[in-house]
């Protein structure tokens, strides 16, 4: 940790040539990453991430630098190098930092470093045993375990001085089922802003492992998915990844402020079926994407993005707020001191509707039921997206029929939002890592079961 006086000196130096904002972000993070494959512990690695990022801005134009050499000499040189990008006669006054404010939400019970390596390794062993016992067809299981404690201090020329501790825990199970030359995989990876109590109070690791095994085995016996345009029912939980990728990113100021988003200038207009309410909430207790403060030192908050189909709020960071002439929404996030913060999602989901899961399936004559979504990507400028379906079934005459594999969903965010025609009441969130210009950060995705009236489904079986 740096002392307050030094941080103040760095900020003063950074402002010395006419910048009107300077910020110091200090990070000290301990992480444990474990890995198991073929029932053997393969990797046990501790790491320490440590460094300082300095941001200096005039209006919305900013420069950024970082180092992990934190001697006074090196930090002052960094501040001085960055200040050289500015040359203004007007100087901004800096009156020193406030009292340190310490983040106190999302308390954990058992800090990772209070737990022996043996107990952490045992989580993987339990998962491995359980997944393999699920079926003889499960032939390989790989598991990762991770936990970290990220301590950050954020100080800026407005006097803000906060400290936040983010503790996160997650395990991921990848099961492979095989029969002859055929192999299919299933993945499940629960996590949260918890310590080791996650495994005794929140999840059951055996059940998580069985879920991964169940998907792999189901897909092993699935046929290739047919392709073409059809209604798609996307199940609750990780199905929300489509909203996250195809709409969420286009509602981030990093895309909106530059006019690069399909949702530019659409605030107050209908962008989705009126059934749709969407929320980004960084305050949910101990959720994967929550924190007390965002990475610009503002208290995280809840943002109502879409209300009854109408776009009500973007997600905006401090500098893009200036560019957009709007208020920031406490949405500045970053992976580490190596990244300048920008507007990012936290825990983002479509809210509950009034239908039930059974009603949605019964109302669908023919279509695809995407029970588990895999990953995907989106081009934020065009909104074009693609997602792999991890576990899919054909719906025939209002009933879930045979499982299908290899399906991909393709579309554009703005069309898909308008085509959501049924929403169930079973909201669930799941965990993901979200990658963007300020790095890879934990984010929850979620939704109730929804139906999109028509979507392009790609599959290897060809058109029906």
């Amino acid at each position: 940790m740096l002392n307050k006086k030094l941080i103040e000196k760095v900020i003063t130096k950074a402002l010395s040539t006419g910048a009107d904002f300077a910020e110091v972000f200090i990070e000290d993070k301990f992480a444990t990453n474990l890995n198991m494959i073929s029932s053997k512990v393969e990797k046990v690695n501790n790491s320490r991430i440590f460094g300082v990022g300095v941001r200096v801005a005039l209006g919305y134009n900013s420069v950024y630098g970082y180092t992990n050499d934190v001697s006074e000499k090196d930090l002052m040189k960094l501040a001085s190098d960055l200040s050289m990008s500015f040359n203004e006669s007007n100087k901004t006054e800096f009156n020193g930092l406030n009292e340190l404010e310490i983040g106190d939400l999302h308390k954990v019970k058992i800090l990772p470093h209070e737990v022996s390596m043996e107990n952490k390794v045992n989580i993987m062993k339990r998962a491995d045993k359980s997944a393999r016992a699920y079926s003889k067809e499960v032939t390989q299981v790989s598991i990762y375990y991770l936990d970290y404690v990220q301590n950050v201090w954020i100080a800026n020329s407005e006097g803000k001085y906060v400290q936040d501790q983010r503790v996160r825990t997650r395990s991921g199970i990848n099961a492979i089922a095989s029969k002859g030359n055929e192999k299919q995989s299933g993945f499940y990876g629960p996590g949260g802003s918890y310590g080791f109590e996650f495994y005794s109070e929140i999840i059951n690791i055996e059940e998580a492992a069985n879920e991964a095994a169940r998907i792999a085995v189901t897909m092993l016996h699935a046929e290739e998915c047919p392709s073409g345009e059809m209604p798609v029912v996307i199940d609750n939980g990780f199905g929300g990844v489509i909203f996250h990728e195809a709409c969420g990113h286009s509602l981030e100021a990093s895309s909106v402020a530059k006019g690069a988003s399909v949702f530019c200038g659409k605030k107050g207009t209908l962008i989705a079926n009126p059934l749709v309410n969407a929320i980004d909430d960084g305050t949910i207790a101990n959720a994967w994407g929550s924190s007390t403060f965002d990475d610009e030192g503002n208290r995280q908050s809840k943002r109502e993005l879409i209300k009854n189909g109408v776009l009500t709020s973007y997600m905006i960071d401090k500098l893009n707020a200036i560019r957009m002439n709007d208020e920031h929404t406490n949405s500045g996030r970053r992976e580490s001191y190596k990244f300048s913060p920008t507007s990012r999602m936290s825990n983002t989901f479509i809210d509950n509707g009034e239908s039930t899961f059974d009603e949605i399936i019964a109302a669908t004559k023919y279509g695809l039921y995407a029970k588990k979504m895999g990953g995907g990507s989106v081009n934020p400028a065009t909104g074009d997206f693609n997602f792999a379906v991890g576990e899919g079934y054909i719906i025939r005459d209002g009933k879930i029929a045979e499982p299908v594999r290899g399906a991909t969903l393709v579309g554009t965010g703005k069309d898909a939002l308008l085509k959501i025609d049924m929403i169930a009441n079973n909201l669930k969130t799941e965990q993901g890592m979200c990658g963007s210009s300020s790095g890879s950060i934990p984010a929850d995705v979620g939704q109730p079961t929804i139906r999109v009236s028509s979507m392009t489904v790609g599959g290897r079986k060809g058109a029906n």
Partner: protein
Amino acid sequence: MNFDKLFSLAKEKGIEDLQIHYVKDNELEIEVFGKEVNKYSIASPSSLRVKGIYDGKMGTVSTEKIDDTMHDFIVDSIIDSAKFIENNDEVFIYEGDDNYSLVEGLYNSKIEDIENTKKINDTLELEKMVLAQDERVKMVQAFYGETKRDVVIKNSKGLDLKKTVNNAVFGAYVIASDGDDQRTGLEYIQSNDYKDFNFEKMAKESAEKACGLLGAGPCDSGEYEILLENDASASLIAAYLSIFSAESVQKDVSLLKGKLNTKIANDIITLVDDPFMKKSVKSGSFDDEGVSTKYKEVVSKGVLTTYLHNLKTAKKDGIASTGNGYGNGIAPSNLYIKPGKHKKEEVIAGINKGLLITSLAGLHSGANAISGDFSLQATGYLIEAGKITSPVALITVAGNYLDLMNNVVGVCDDIKYNFNYIGSPSIHIKSLSVSGK
């Protein structure tokens, strides 16, 4: 950090052999948008990875806090790590090779002598040039990035290796719009010689990429003859990298298991791993384990001749390491499909009904490295009677990677490398299943 003290503390606590891998980077990033510098970043990060053999197991640790207060953390973490590893494979700290190839052209100090203001002005100029290409170009993000990397590897067996590499990239990301449709394009050049940056070429090609796709929509579903453009083919190789790793093969998660010395691709496919390529940050005379690197044809005229090995996997297979021990695992250096003689235009002229695929998306989820199956979002152009007719988007192409490699009927001469130095020329494929409207 006093490394000698670290080595002696490790020995004291029972670590048989220890190796450090220290990397110090100096980075500059410039991004221009709307005639303004949108991003200017300077950084000097360093990192230290340490591994050590304790009780026959290899323990690892990494840290970015690099000072003498970290000695205990490093040594204790290695011991804690080694204690719980159950993999019984033999592990090595390498004493080094007798000879290391001299690799020239990896570091060019001249690029650092150029003033940052010139680099900023050139980035601004690049934006201007792209905007001037076509009135449908609505937005441009021009960028410049520069990295200098110093690497030091030292171990208790006397190995002491150093290298310095540098690299820079100029590029432009373009958004074009015709009022109804919006499309994007990206073009870049990587080199450590400032003279290689052809701004006119980048401006022209990035604008064409975005504008050409305006109005794109799905084509009819069906089987199409395919010309997979260089960028797109390289991205597909990148998605299937792990299948060439001996580690994946030994763990039975590679579809190339049991296929050594058999034909896995058409005769016209040769896949090269070249650690001696000039101007690439991935090049060097030694890998992260200190093993001297080698030029090799991983796939030679369609035949899989070797997997990529590090010391551990090589020992298991009873052969020598191929010098691909990077990170704590296995990776290629510069991996590329050897270019052929065909011209892209000629191939297009010979296709009656086909698709030119210019980019693939969804590679991290839609390409299964275990089964080889893929189903990917594609963008490109319809080819009818030897001519490019209309842009295509929102389609998926599906197939199996090995089937695809066997169905390559032509290799073009236009090799291009991605940011990770995975390269490919455009390749002509007999057919793929396309799902559109």
